[in-house]
């Protein structure tokens, strides 16, 4: 009776649609808030009640990427006219862009570098965690490992205490080996943190891939390693994509360790953004702009992998 619905089913359907909209509204409101604040002039960012209709401006983004100082005296008309449009925006806000005394070049804020750090550290640690996790999971899934359950429990147990508990010892250890404030240090940290998750998730996915695939490849003249890359890996891609999204989000959002372990060279965006709140009156528009840009990579990454996330496992060619 496809297509024909009872009144009860229609009602259930409508309730479900309403529920989805309510949930969406709850989840999207903060994102709307951040997005709208990052295009507001500073004086409208904190009005009560909130300003909904306003003339959007990109001045928060200009301020996000430049170093500024308070204006001691108003710029002359010539100075103002000679300045490019974005510098005029800063003048309008009662600040001026800091320039190099000799070359006159604009001094950039730290945001760009911190953002790049975030990208490098998150991507590299995700690639490492997913690839190592997949290989480990394959080993556990396919071979007899002495004490397999104990090992798996041990791997899982690394997730059982809040990571911040080990922050101080980690900090001291890192200082001794010189990994403090290095990209490598954070990459190792995030890889280790994500690895247990990756092993467990990937083991679930690889257990689902029938052994016959590899066995067929083995009798067809391939080595175990070739069989892994040619047969198992393509089947495990869905799982790897899902695992990668979660690992990337974890690394991308990590705040506590990034705050403790880094300060200049390898600092990521999460500890940097709130550090802008610190001096003087907080400029929420700049923080909102930084946050909005920070959301984008995760959105793109998830969007690119959405088919893998949705597709699920397709084992059409195995009959059981």
């Amino acid at each position: 009776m496809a297509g024909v619905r009872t009144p009860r089913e229609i009602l259930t359907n409508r309730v479900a649609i309403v529920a989805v909209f309510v949930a969406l509204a709850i989840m999207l409101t903060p994102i709307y808030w951040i997005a709208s604040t990052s295009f507001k002039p500073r004086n409208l960012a904190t009005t009560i009640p909130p300003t909904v209709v306003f003339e959007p401006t990109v001045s928060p983004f200009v301020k996000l990427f430049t170093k500024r100082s308070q204006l001691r005296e108003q710029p002359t008309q010539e100075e103002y006219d000679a300045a490019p449009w974005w510098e005029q925006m800063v003048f309008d806000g009662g600040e001026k862009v800091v320039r190099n005394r000799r070359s006159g070049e604009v001094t950039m804020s730290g945001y760009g570098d911190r953002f790049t750090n975030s990208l490098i550290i998150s991507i590299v640690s995700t690639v490492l965690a997913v690839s190592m996790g997949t290989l480990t999971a394959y080993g556990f899934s396919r071979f007899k490992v002495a004490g397999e359950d104990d090992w798996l429990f041990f791997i899982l147990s690394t997730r059982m205490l809040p990571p911040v508990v080990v922050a101080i010892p980690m900090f001291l250890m890192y200082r001794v080996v010189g990994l403090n404030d290095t990209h490598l240090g954070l990459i190792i940290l995030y890889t280790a943190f994500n690895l247990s998750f990756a092993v467990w998730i990937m083991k679930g996915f690889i257990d689902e891939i029938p052994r016959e695939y590899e066995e067929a490849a083995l009798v067809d003249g391939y080595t175990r390693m070739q069989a892994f890359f040619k047969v198992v890996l393509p089947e495990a891609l869905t799982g790897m994509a899902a695992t990668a999204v979660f690992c990337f989000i974890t690394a991308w959002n990590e705040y506590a360790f990034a705050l403790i372990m880094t300060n200049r060279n390898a600092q990521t965006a999460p500890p940097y953004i709130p550090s802008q709140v610190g001096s003087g009156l907080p400029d929420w528009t700049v923080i909102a702009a930084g946050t909005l840009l920070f959301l984008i990579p995760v959105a793109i990454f998830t969007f690119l992998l959405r088919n893998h996330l949705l597709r699920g496992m397709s084992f059409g060619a195995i009959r059981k």
Partner: protein
Amino acid sequence: MAQIDIRNVQKFFGQHQVLKNLNLTIEDGEFVVMLGQSGGGKTTALRAIAGLETVTSGKILINGTEVQDRKAADRDIAFVFQSFSLYPHMTVRENIAFPLRAVRMNAADRDKAVSEVAETLQIAEHLNRKPSALSGGDMQRVAIGRALVRRPQALLMDEPLGVLDAKLREQMRAEIKRLHIARGSTSVYVTHDQIEAMSLADRIVILHDGVLQQVGPPDEVYLHPTNLFVAKFVGSPVMNVNAVRLEGNSVVINGASQGFHFPDQMLGHARSTAGEMTLGVRPEAVLLSHQPSDGFVEAVTTNIEPLGSHDIVDVRLGDTVLRARTESAFVSGEGQKVWARIDPSQAHFFDTATGLNLRGAN
């Protein structure tokens, strides 16, 4: 093509022994079917030949070369899995070409070999589709194509028809037979379906609890089972198996009031045993008559299975029941009085304790 020699092979899984001193020679070009219940060791034996399973002791030779320590990839055999095991991320063409890529055959030869196999198996029009878009029968054809394309020394098949429905199974059975005749490849085929075994095999190998029970051509296994297990496992409907005793020249089924008269020369071997005896008679060796006559014993029909070409009729003698095969509509219903006889030339006497055939009747 090749001869496969299995010598004194033992296989343990932990404490559990799944192959007990297996000895078997499969001749070049022969189609051997390993038949047995699940857990009987037949799949393990097949996987041991393929190199997917190591053996605990013993030797496996292909064309006289010991291969038991070689990897599966180095044995030059092909394997068809029950699950077909087609790679879902590859097209049919890529699936069939996959073994050829392993040996780095050049693209032109590869395409030629793939087309040739696809032609033979009538799957040429599916070459660019993904396996998930195929029917069960076509998946099976692709799996066989992937196995044959490399022209391996031997073709091993593990219940390849097990997941197909009955009608398709019959059709594929005929195709496999035709293919074997055309190609003459040494084939080892594992199944628990005795009809498949009978129809395909040059020789049937019956395995039970890891022990080889009997090896022989289908008719020999059917007509001359060496023991009770083989007698009961081969043949449909199942052979009548009853405990009996001898009273002079009369064979009396325990629980029946009257015995069946056997000629003296048919009972020589049966007399030689002192222990308990079991009589095995196939339904076609139980003869029914509407009139009482010499050697026939009175019985009552209890159940009739009309099968079109013939009927299977259950008759009660005293406290026991025999199944007989009759022509269609020979008896019209339950509760009829009939007379039954056993064909002495088709009767098998087994030693109840050992299960071995006493070779009395044949």
